[in-house]
């Protein structure tokens, strides 16, 4: 059910207009197929020898609807974000942030974290590159927190599966946590808690901006297709796992159990959700189908958002990577400050809604 095959995979000599036309056709075909998905899932469930209203029927219908839906949403968004990201690079972002004052710098860093392309294995060189180029430590943290937490995959999947209000709330508060947590870490003046070798590095001048010259629109489309290959090719297994778990919750977990455990009445559910989220390492694509199912079953919005933010922003493997540049004390401060922000968001939403 992927729609990548509609992408023109034309040779280099293909004129630009055929690329533009191809992208338009792809987008229209995408919308036509997307509209048919509810009917498709009902049809597929009806083919199987299960009662539609049974637990198994509910779970299967959820699975057959959500899997193509999530993969299609992801394909479209990753493609367009790939195009948008071709206008940005870590080198440009670093140049924009270097020497910026705290405050303004934190806001800029968190926003740039959304659009700057970088993969998690680049986290260490990026961190060193930023700090050594005079980007303040707190501003660097704002970038590092926002980048995984507030990404296009999270926003779009929340929008498509849960609703635009929750997506906007997540965007606003994700950015707020990145900005405030980075600012707080900056206030502590913890430069001494970097690993010693990091402080000793002095890079002569800014690195040449080799990645982004003047790209043509066709090259940007190619970047978009490349991101679809990279990202969708990597996360589809997580999506299937997430949706399967979501489908089981959807079909089998009784409403009252969920309300008791994750409803807004249970105050301890927010910290529990944050603690549970830390060792879990998946990305937004895997966790959002679970979020959808939990909300559907009456779990409180604040608790679910806290769980999702914790899974995405605080991950044990990422801390292992950061251990190479940060002393343990600084990692602890980082986790503490971000966890406090997530807790605040969780409690706030449970109180409001």
């Amino acid at each position, binding site marked *: 059910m992927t729609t990548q095959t509609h992408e023109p995979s034309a040779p280099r000599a293909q004129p630009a207009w055929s690329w533009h036309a191809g992208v338009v056709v792809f987008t229209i075909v995408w919308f036509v197929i997307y509209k048919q998905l509810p009917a498709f899932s009902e049809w597929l469930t009806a083919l199987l020898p299960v009662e539609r209203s049974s637990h198994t029927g509910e779970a299967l219908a959820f699975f057959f609807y959500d899997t193509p839906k999530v993969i299609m949403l992801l394909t479209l968004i990753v493609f367009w974000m790939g195009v948008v990201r071709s206008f940005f690079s870590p080198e440009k972002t670093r140049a924009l942030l270097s020497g910026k004052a705290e405050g303004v710098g934190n806001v800029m860093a968190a926003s740039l974290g959304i659009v700057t392309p970088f993969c998690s294995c680049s986290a260490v*060189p990026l961190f060193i590159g930023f700090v050594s180029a005079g980007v303040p430590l707190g501003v660097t943290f704002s970038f590092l927190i926002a980048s995984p937490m507030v990404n296009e995959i999270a926003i779009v999947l929340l929008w498509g599966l849960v609703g635009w209000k929750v997506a906007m709330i997540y965007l606003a508060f994700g950015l707020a946590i990145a900005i405030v947590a980075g600012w707080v870490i900056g206030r502590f003046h913890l430069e001494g808690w970097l690993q010693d070798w990091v402080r000793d590095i002095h890079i002569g001048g800014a*690195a040449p901006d*080799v990645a982004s010259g003047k790209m043509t629109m066709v090259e940007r489309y190619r970047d978009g297709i490349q991101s679809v290959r990279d990202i969708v090719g990597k996360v589809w297994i997580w999506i299937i796992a997430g949706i399967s778990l979501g489908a089981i919750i959807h079909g089998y977990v009784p409403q009252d159990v969920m309300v008791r455990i994750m409803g807004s009445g249970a105050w301890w559910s927010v910290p529990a959700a944050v603690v549970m989220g830390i060792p879990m390492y998946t990305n937004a694509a895997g966790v959002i189908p679970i979020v959808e199912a939990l909300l559907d079953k009456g779990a409180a919005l604040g608790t679910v958002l806290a769980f999702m933010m914790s899974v995405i922003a605080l991950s044990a493997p990422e801390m292992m990577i950061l251990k190479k540049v940060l002393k343990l004390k600084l990692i602890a401060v980082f986790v503490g400050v971000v966890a406090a922000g997530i807790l605040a968001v969780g409690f706030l939403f449970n109180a409001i809604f």
Partner: protein
Amino acid sequence: MKEVIVYGPGCKRCETVEQMVRDTATRLGLDVDVKKETDYAKIAMAGVVSTPGIAIDGKLVHAGGLPDEAALEGWLSA
């Protein structure tokens, strides 16, 4: 003989780039010395912010993501 250094901490993409450089050199019949640098300090010192990065004879020509095949041929045969 050109000296090529591929900067990357050892993620899959960095290994792909190293292999691309070797394959392209072989295809063009060029004799190049390909090294892989996985040390974070050295990567940062070279000015690589986004990995993988490629330096040819000490000059950084690429950083971040997989390079374009045609561009890679150009750098290697220049």
